[in-house]
């Protein structure tokens, strides 16, 4: 429902002080509380203590503010994107779905069309997760990784410019390291803890899972 913004009243940024001066110039009792739209427009606020039930009523009213709704212009723009995205999703063209979702992200306001685009983006994300899971499975099963690399490349293209593409890129870097490891482990004089050391190169990413001990022999 909300993202919290905690502000120390003894060290308040000017932009926050301006919010109080503009909307609650006479406020004096802490805490000051306000609810804004996600693009920073004032909805409502108060100063001083409120009982929990009063706060709940305040928040529920704020959540119904018409300021949260998308304009007719935005809705028309998103309707077009939604239509395009639906057709693309039906054909598994996830790049177009992601592109339409990104157009929606550049606009503001709640509406059915935005919800629809979010739902389609979620389907694209599910597709991506399935690809990532398949890559990990292939690695852990000791399979050849050419197809896995192709899958990551595909994800990278679909999400070009986004954080998901970065994840795919790191995965693509992990694959040659795993191939190196596999060859090294065939040698009698393999370094101790080599698997763990290479896995550590990808610490903090999902791709450490590629270096889990293989569950089957190489195919």
């Amino acid at each position: 429902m909300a993202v919290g913004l905690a502000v120390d009243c003894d060290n308040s940024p000017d932009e926050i002080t301006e919010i109080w001066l503009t909307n609650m110039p006479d406020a004096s009792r802490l805490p000051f509380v306000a609810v804004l739209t996600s693009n920073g427009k004032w909805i409502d606020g108060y100063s001083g203590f409120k009982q929990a039930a009063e706060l709940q009523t305040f928040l529920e009213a704020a959540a119904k503010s018409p300021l949260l709704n998308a304009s007719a212009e935005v809705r028309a723009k998103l309707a077009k994107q939604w239509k395009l995205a639906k057709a693309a999703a039906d054909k598994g063209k996830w790049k177009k779905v992601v592109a339409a979702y990104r157009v929606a992200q550049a606009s503001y306001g709640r509406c059915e069309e935005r919800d629809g685009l979010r739902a389609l983006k979620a389907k694209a994300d599910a597709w991506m997760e399935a690809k990532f899971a398949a890559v990990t499975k292939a690695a852990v099963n000791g399979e050849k990784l050419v197809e896995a690399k192709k899958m990551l490349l595909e994800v990278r293209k679909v999400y070009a410019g986004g954080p998901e593409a970065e994840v795919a890129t790191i995965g693509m870097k992990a694959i040659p390291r795993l191939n190196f490891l596999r060859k090294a482990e065939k040698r009698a004089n393999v370094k101790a803890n080599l698997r763990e050391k290479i896995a550590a190169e990808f610490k903090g990413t999902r791709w450490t899972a590629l270096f889990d001990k293989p569950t089957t022999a190489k195919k």
Partner: protein
Amino acid sequence: MRTSLLLVSMISLAAVAVAAPQKHPHFDDGGALQWQTKLSSAKAEAGKADKLIFIEYGRAA
């Protein structure tokens, strides 16, 4: 302390899936909200899912 009690009451309203919640710098709100300390960050987070920005302006008790 009073603010803490107020925010705890928001738990039922905060129907949000928070992967890595940031705690309020002054008190424990029981995980009711994910907190930011900069308006720009709050806008970015709220914009991802059409959420409200809830400003709490006070000091540590």
